[in-house]
């Protein structure tokens, strides 16, 4: 690229998609209205655990406006337990008991919310009325809610054919923890409880299915994050070829992980009913359903210990934890493996011994939600270091600094296996400058004085700092097709879905630089399997890394085609040409230029012979698969003020310093961080799924399940360092989850500091916290 060409990559460019979104012109699943459309509602179990004796839909069928009602028995051979999405990684001695859900419960119910029947009616109102007509008989069994009780002998079994409620058991080791502990100057052991909540996207899930009998074509509009996977899966279960099924994930109002899960019952039932009735059918999940019908992320209990030398250097960490997987485990081990791996953080931990047991409970299914188990692990290591700092009388920032992996140690092999089946290896990183930047930005050096002065005025300030790494950008691959159109616009298609990430802009930036057009001249299509039919999906902070590099590869090939064609046109050397403003120009000869639109037409001639081996058009389809995940990292720091009587708190300052390699668009990156921190704050201090002993969710509404609002999320100061990834040509690392991961330990640390809890012997070893919970912990301690 010559220096005269524009560089959109890295620039804070406003989003191409915002005009559409802000003026209500973006298509969401619920916007679809098709003539003859019917509407679905599902009857869900009101009991967490029980033998399903009967489901009688006859009265519902008799209601005016009801077209059909189906139970598991009506599905015939279509009734099958669903697929395993992610098989367990190749870890020695792994135990994994696969139990996936079917789309309607048949013999047993295993969580409140599990679908029992589907009603198809002329309106959603009628469909909901008809749900009350269905007679259900369930013989109730004891609910399985508590993780430890679930593993005791005699506990009720979620899956009767297993002899216990163990979903999985995995031990990963590096080095010899016992030997490390034997020579340690200090060992700290604690029990930690960390609960993550539900992702609460602004748009709940939804499915519209249309079976076209004449064309033999099934079209499904779905809020999925992985349209290509879903298309492949649907083709398989319906016995259709992949080209007979089109899945469209249009604009989707937030994904955060749970929308990757498949099959959700509705993703099978709605298309199935459409093929039976030969009419389009819509199902839109309402917020009440969302609380139980979309997957959660929930709790883990860690018994962890850390062995240190007298200077606070980590000699080893041992962790044994329980993980709540819910009633079924279709997503394999991804969440607990992430917890296990991410605990290691940016630190040198010479000996690591980590064992987890994933436990079946009679609660909704657990699958990844932004962070995907990383929070749990980061909480454990960051809290252990805080306690160590206190006991060894070392400053909390200093103990972290002493243990950072040095910059010359990369690639850094942690010698355990990650969720993508590859060894957990950090591709690149430079951690100390991030910590230094964060300490400077938060005013760490002067804080003790500030704190003392505030206290003299009756104000209780607290400070906190937390490190984390984030495995991002895993394989297998993504692809993209780039084409210069005859009207001069450039179209890009990729298989990943979009849920607000800014794909329409960042991919356009990459392409605009390569082919020399305006960012606004690039039209990006995502998530339509008829427009691009290969790929995996949008998850694990991989869209920009994997699809972004595929887009770059395809754009590079198109650039070469443009240069070659233009060189022929001008009868000059390619080196004499430069691209920009939608045209190709001979360097230094103003006026000697040709529009991209003209070249696109030339590349698709109407007459004459074409040389063998030539493809028409200025088009290319390319794929990119990274050899391993890229590891981003960062530090969050926060100052809070706590009301010492009411235990309410206010965030006074929030700093994020982050390294996600090369930055494509700082505005979009900032948005990712802001949103992640907001969800992290919710996780740390507001959101808690409250189940009673019978497995009933007690706070299934947004009035009771508290999401932080704009008033609860502070302005943030964002800073970056750049350590490019060597694993992809653009040097990108993912950023989708960075904001959300370390907020829990930050709250625990800051509250302890503000109220001087450590000196009172009170430690905060759990998340979420709240004023009410702090009151309990403090009064219990006396």
């Amino acid at each position, binding site marked *: 690229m010559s220096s005269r060409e524009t560089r959109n990559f890295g620039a804070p460019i406003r989003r191409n998609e915002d005009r559409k979104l802000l003026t209500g012109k973006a298509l969401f699943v619920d916007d679809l209205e098709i003539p003859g459309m019917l509407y679905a509602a599902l009857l869900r179990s009101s009991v967490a655990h029980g033998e399903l004796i009967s489901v009688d839909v006859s009265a519902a069928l008799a209601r005016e406006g009801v077209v059909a009602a189906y139970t598991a028995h009506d599905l015939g051979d279509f009734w099958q337990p669903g697929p395993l999405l992610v098989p367990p990684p190749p870890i020695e001695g792994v135990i994994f008991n696969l139990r996936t859900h079917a789309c309607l419960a048949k013999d047993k119910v295993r969580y409140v919310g599990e679908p029992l029947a589907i009603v198809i009616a002329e309106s*959603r*109102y009628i469909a*909901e*009325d008809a749900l009350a007509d269905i007679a259900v008989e369930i013989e109730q069994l004891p609910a399985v809610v508590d993780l430890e009780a679930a593993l005791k002998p005699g506990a009720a079994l979620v899956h009767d054919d297993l002899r216990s409620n163990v979903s999985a058991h995995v031990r990963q080791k590096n080095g010899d923890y016992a030997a490390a502990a034997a020579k340690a100057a200090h060992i700290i052991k604690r029990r930690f409880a960390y609960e993550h909540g539900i992702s609460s996207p602004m748009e709940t899930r939804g499915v519209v299915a249309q079976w076209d009998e004449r064309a033999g074509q099934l079209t499904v509009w779905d809020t999925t994050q992985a349209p290509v996977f879903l298309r492949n899966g649907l083709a398989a279960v319906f016995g259709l070829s992949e080209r007979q099924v089109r899945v469209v994930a249009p604009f989707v109002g937030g994904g955060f992980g749970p929308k990757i899960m498949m099959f959700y019952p509705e993703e099978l039932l709605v298309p199935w009913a459409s093929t039976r009735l030969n009419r389009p059918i819509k199902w839109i999940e*309402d*917020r*009440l359903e969302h609380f139980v019908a979309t997957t959660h992320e929930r709790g883990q209990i860690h018994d962890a210990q850390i062995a240190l030398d007298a200077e606070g250097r980590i000699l080893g960490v041992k962790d044994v934890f329980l993980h709540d997987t819910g009633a079924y485990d279709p997503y394999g081990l991804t969440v607990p493996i992430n917890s296990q791996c991410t605990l290691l953080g940016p630190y040198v931990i010479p000996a690591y011994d980590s064992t987890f047991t994933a436990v079946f409970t009679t609660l909704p299914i657990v699958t990844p939600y932004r962070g995907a188990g990383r929070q749990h692990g980061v909480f454990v290591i960051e809290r252990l270091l805080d306690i160590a700092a206190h006991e060894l009388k070392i400053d909390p920032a200093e103990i972290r600094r002493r243990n950072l992996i040095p910059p010359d140690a990369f690639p850094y092999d942690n010698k355990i296996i990650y969720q993508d089946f590859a060894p957990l290896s950090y591709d690149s990183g430079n951690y100390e400058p991030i910590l230094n930047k964060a300490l400077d930005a938060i005013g760490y050096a002067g804080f003790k004085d500030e704190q003392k002065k505030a206290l003299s005025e009756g104000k209780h300030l607290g400070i906190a700092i937390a490190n984390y790494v984030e495995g991002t950008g895993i394989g297998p691959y993504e692809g993209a097709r780039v084409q210069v159109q005859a009207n001069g616009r450039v179209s890009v298609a990729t298989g990943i879905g979009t849920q607000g990430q800014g794909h329409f802009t960042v991919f356009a930036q990459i392409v605009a630089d390569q082919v020399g057009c305006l960012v606004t001249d690039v039209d990006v299509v995502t998530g339509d399997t008829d427009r691009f039919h290969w790929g995996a999906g949008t998850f694990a902070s991989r869209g920009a890394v994997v699809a972004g590099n595929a887009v770059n590869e395809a754009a590079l090939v198109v650039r070469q085609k443009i240069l070659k064609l233009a060189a022929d046109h001008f009868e000059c050397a390619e080196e004499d040409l430069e691209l920009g403003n939608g045209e190709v120009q001979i360097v230094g000869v103003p006026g000697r230029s040709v529009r991209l639109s003209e070249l696109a037409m030339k590349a698709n001639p109407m007459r004459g012979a074409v040389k063998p081996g030539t493809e028409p058009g200025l088009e290319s389809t390319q794929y990119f698969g990274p050899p391993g995940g890229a590891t981003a990292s960062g530090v969050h720091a926060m100052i809070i003020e706590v009301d010492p*009587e*009411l235990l*309410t708190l206010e965030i006074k300052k929030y700093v994020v310093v982050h390294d996600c390699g090369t930055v494509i668009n700082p505005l979009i990156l900032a948005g990712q961080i802001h949103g992640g921190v907001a969800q992290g704050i919710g996780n740390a201090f*507001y959101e808690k799924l*409250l189940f009673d002993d019978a497995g009933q969710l*007690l*706070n299934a*509404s947004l*009035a*009771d399940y*508290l999401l*932080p*609002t704009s*008033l*609860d999320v502070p302005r943030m100061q964002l800073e970056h360092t750049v350590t490019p990834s060597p694993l992809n040509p653009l040097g990108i690392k993912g950023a989708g989850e960075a904001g959300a991961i370390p907020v829990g330990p930050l709250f625990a640390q800051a509250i302890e500091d503000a109220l001087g809890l450590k000196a009172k012997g009170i430690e905060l070893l759990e998340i979420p916290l*709240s*004023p*009410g919970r702090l*009151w*309990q912990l403090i*009064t219990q301690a006396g």
Partner: protein
Amino acid sequence: MKPAPFKYVIARTLDEALAAKAEYGDEARFLAGGQSLVPTMNFRMAMPAVLIDINPLTELSGIKANGVTRIGAMTRYRMLEADAGIGERLRIIHEALPHIAHPQIRNRGTLGGNLSHADPASEMPAIMLALNATLYLRSAKAARQIAARDFFVGALETVIAPDEMLTEIVVPHLPANSGACFMEVARRQGDFAIAGIAAIVTRGADGTCTRARLTYCGVAQTPFYADDAAQSLIGGPVTPAAIKQAAALAMEALDPPGNSHADPSYQRHVAGVLTRRALATAWART
């Protein structure tokens, strides 16, 4: 989250509304702002057979002051917020209003609808109790008035009969040298109160407290009136010691039910802290 089928009746006059209520009785609910009723209908927790829409009844909307302040039952929160007279004479109402949900909801929600709904965590019942308001009820056959103190029976329960409507709220003005303060703790701005307090005290010519009222929201099945605590303040200056004693009495009298954000002990504690803070502020404002 779609409501069950219901019949919709639009009332053009108060008489039409009352006639419809007389006809349908318990089966019918008045639709005022709809900010509590409609969500409960969408959850199918409420399934009234008939909704009588009283939004056209402009005669029930408005604020008048002549010795007392008369507020029509259909007066929206937003109108109260924007009313300068309320700000002058009954400033505690303005202090409490921002705690009620969010501006969008306050644009629709009505004072009469809120009091009739009688959510114990709600602010206005406690405020009206503290202000010693009188509530005017009408049916097709009769009219009656009732003190706020006798209006609330239990959670979501009032003395309104199946054929009656709350039409007007009459609020007496505070004596000279009175100070009032409303404070609340909720998890987020606009959430239901973990505990809220309305404190009103009057300073006599000799500097002692001559009149005191302390009411709470969120801590009982109805808005709670802490009689003993208020009485303990009368006859002396409102010193920190007197405040401490009143707060202790209030906490003793309270038996909060607890909720998902606060156990009973934290609720009582918050009520105690707020009692101290609100009383000190109210006294400073006398």
